[in-house]
């Protein structure tokens, strides 16, 4: 594998950025600073990290309701993310989207998405665009295990397959769709096996191992860039929290939870980096501290940012005119 030390260091930073962003969001939600539905990526950091490390700035991703990790890994700016979570006018979506709709066209982030399964066929469109315009771009499409039972999964994989589109379908199998365990929502063990239905490669990897994810994505992306079409990568992982904040997740088996938390991705990656002499504990601690500061700055930015103005509610429906606003 051709991963450089620099990339691995970058991956470490990415994972820590996700972890700390999410932990902070968890607190902010508990303290009532973040409204709405909040779905955290805690425990799944290795996936976005491993995949996005392979992507260029002009590559695309589609994301889900649980999107913060993807956005951070693709280079999203925490300041604007935080401001969006807070509903501020400086947020990525000017406070119109919130946690479930963060997007950044300049970074190729085609949006978090509140509709389960919606990202899959948007990714097909992005892939079509890359192929049609004959660029070397690709689109990585993140989605959960639960979403693989939506019709969109099926239609998207089929269409990407016949058109040999440069799309990497990344299934984050955290073993639950809200309260429904994978073993109850489908009668197969490896979601990767579904690739055969479309005549495309399917691989299952340890989603808590950033290097394993990196490797699988690297191969899939190389295939895609060569015009050989899509790949389905299943990353096995675990959702640490409830489905959304506020869900006590009583349906989880505490033993399983414990086992998965023991295999936690950030610590594992730290150990890997240390063992392989890529980074020392001190260097990593330094990164941690820098990220702490980044979060602090982002929170401050968000807190100090103004709320949207009510009269802005009618803007951005269309590109060329504003909608009427009620005057009170």
């Amino acid at each position: 594998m051709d991963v450089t030390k620099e990339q691995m260091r970058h991956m470490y930073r990415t994972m820590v950025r996700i972890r700390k962003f999410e932990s902070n969001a968890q607190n902010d939600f508990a303290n009532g600073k973040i409204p709405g539905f909040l779905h955290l990526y805690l425990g799944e950091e290795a996936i976005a990290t491993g995949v996005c490390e392979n992507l260029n700035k002009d590559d695309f991703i589609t994301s889900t309701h649980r999107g913060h990790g993807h956005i951070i890994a693709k280079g999203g700016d925490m300041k604007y993310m935080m401001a969006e979570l807070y509903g501020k006018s400086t947020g990525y979506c000017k406070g119109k989207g919130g946690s479930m709709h963060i997007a950044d066209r300049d970074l190729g982030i085609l949006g978090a998405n509140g509709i389960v399964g919606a990202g899959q066929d948007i990714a097909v469109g992005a892939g079509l665009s890359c192929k049609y315009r004959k660029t070397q771009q690709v689109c990585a499409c993140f989605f959960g295990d639960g979403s693989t039972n939506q019709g969109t999964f099926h239609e998207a994989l089929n269409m990407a397959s016949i058109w040999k589109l440069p799309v990497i379908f990344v299934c984050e199998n955290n073993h639950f769709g809200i309260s429904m365990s994978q073993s109850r929502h489908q009668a197969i063990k490896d979601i990767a096996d579904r690739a055969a239905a479309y005549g495309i490669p399917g691989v299952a990897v340890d989603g808590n191992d950033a290097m394993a994810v990196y490797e699988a994505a690297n191969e899939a992306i190389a295939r895609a860039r060569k015009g050989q079409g899509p790949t389905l990568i299943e990353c096995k992982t675990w959702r640490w929290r409830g489905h959304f904040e506020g869900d006590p997740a009583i349906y989880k088996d505490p033993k399983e939870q414990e086992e998965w938390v023991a295999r936690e991705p950030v610590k594992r990656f730290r150990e890997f980096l240390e063992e392989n002499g890529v980074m020392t504990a001190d260097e990593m601690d330094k990164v941690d501290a820098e990220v702490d500061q980044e979060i602090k700055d982002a929170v401050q930015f968000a807190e100090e940012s103004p709320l949207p103005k009510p009269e802005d509610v009618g803007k951005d429906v269309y590109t060329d005119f504003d909608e009427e606003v009620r005057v009170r």
Partner: protein
Amino acid sequence: MKTMSVMEAIREAMSIRMREDPNVLLFGEDVGKFGGCFGVSAGMFDEFGPERVRDTPISEGAIIGAATGSAATGLRPIAEIMMDDFITVAMDQLVNNAAFMHYMFGGKIELPMVVRTVNGAGVNAAAQHSKSMEAWLTHVPGLKVVYPSTPQDCLGLLLASIDDNNPVVFFEHKIAYGEKGEVSSFDPIPLGKGDIKKEGSDVTIIAYGYQVFRALKAAEQLEKEGISAEVLDPRTLYPLDKDLIAESVGKTHNVVITSEEFKRGSYAGEISAFVAEEMFDSLDAPCRRVCALNTPVPFSAVLENAFIPQTEDIVNAVKAQRE
């Protein structure tokens, strides 16, 4: 007489019929042990077991398709679509099949099925989790559409919906779940009968769903300013109680309609059109619609509050109409 919340009333109606009729069952995403995304079916899994309170995969199309197929073959399913927003995924099953089947098949197949789903803004859930799309459903021949407000109405109308032999879409508003009220009857309330929630003589405010609560507050405020508002809750959107509306308009000669829909193409608009078309001479002034804005539902509270048709918007509309 019993005090109940809207949520409890809905749960009670389902439970009553499930106790009486083994062919009634509930399915949907996370309706089982989890008790539903909002807790509506909490406890029902324990009472009725996994066959009758059944978790589905995330497959809204198949949920409505399964409701259709099972209703056609002897069951009386209640299918829950977690949010109205996700009914988009199942529009084909609901419209091209469930709604039209009885007609396409020359009246020979009946579909006693209820689709329960959840509407409404107000919880900072943004564009894909907050809509109120009842206009889509009321436009479709073959569907009945119910959108009650009070616990008593929710209970009685859900019983009637389960008893009905046609596909019924039953709307619930996520903010309304906590609203409490007295429940004195455990009988079905016939679909198609509206209700006067407050009598008045100067203006008829037609409101349904959560807007009933906002309209009642508005009426209270108006009362203080010497304007007597009647609050008419159609409860069932289709069939619509046109007689009750005609009666009320015949008395007040002024109509304000409020709903949480996007204003353009709203069912409130259909009511406005029908009032103007059929009761033109009874009207002292043009009808006014107090709906949500024609924008996707925004996330930030400031914007969402501007989006939602608030109590004061109703008050203002009534006053503006009298000027």
